[in-house]
């Protein structure tokens, strides 16, 4: 028999921020909160100058993107992460999918914080390059 639960919010009973979910195989559980991506963003890395704010095409739990320099961006998180140990990954594409960019999610020059991290995009010659689409995803613990 099918069942549907209609609700606005899920909170753990033993620990508010931890809900187990039976996994696809039916034998083990995974964790709902740990499995959720806490932030993601899709933005155009071209057309702005250093220091300018970039408007995301779409995003979740990010407040702003700053163009630091060519192929160099900082992303600000809306609801803070619990610590600076979170994982972020990304990718990028260019006009007509040209090979002018690939995200490098390192923190060179700026240590990541619970609210901000910095990413770099390089072209196939390993030179900084502004791609037409930059995508970033963040996983980890929310504050």
């Amino acid at each position: 028999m099918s069942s549907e639960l209609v609700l606005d919010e899920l909170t753990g009973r033993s620990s508010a921020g931890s809900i187990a979910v039976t996994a696809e195989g039916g034998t083990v559980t995974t964790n709902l909160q740990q499995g959720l991506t806490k932030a993601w963003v899709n933005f155009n890395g071209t057309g702005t100058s250093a220091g300018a704010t970039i408007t995301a095409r779409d995003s979740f739990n990010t407040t702003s993107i700053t163009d630091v320099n060519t192929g160099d961006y900082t992303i600000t998180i809306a609801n803070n992460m619990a610590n600076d140990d979170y994982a972020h990954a990304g990718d990028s594409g260019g006009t007509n999918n040209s090979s002018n960019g690939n995200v490098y999610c390192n923190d060179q020059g700026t240590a990541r914080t619970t609210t901000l991290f910095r990413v770099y995009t390089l072209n196939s010659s390993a030179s900084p390059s502004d791609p037409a689409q930059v995508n970033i995803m963040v996983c980890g613990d929310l504050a």
Partner: protein
Amino acid sequence: MSSILKVNTLTGVSTAGSISVTGEGNSTTTNLQNGLAKAHMTYDLSGTAEIVHGFNLSSPVDVAQGKFGCSFINNMATATEYAVAGICKGNGFMVHGALQTASAMQIWNYDWDGDLSDFDLYGLVVHGDLA
């Protein structure tokens, strides 16, 4: 006391496609639908092309060297706003973006000489809004 809720479908009350989830630190909430990956795939081209693992993506179509196309089973809400991140095995990298629509996308893969190349293994994840 532990409790188990058995249910097949979760739907928001105020907005069907929006459910808050208390975060790990117990002080803020995140959003269930926004946090869920809408598609992911591991694609093996080392022998017979096959999806090793896939969710909400149909079998890739070989477009040309270094290029393959994927169709969503359940479409995304818009053509340009979803986010894709992926890697390929070997000395290369994956790009995308200009040829994505709400129902399909092309993935192009380059070696570090900037040439389109086929690699043995690809992995990708998609986030964004479903239609």
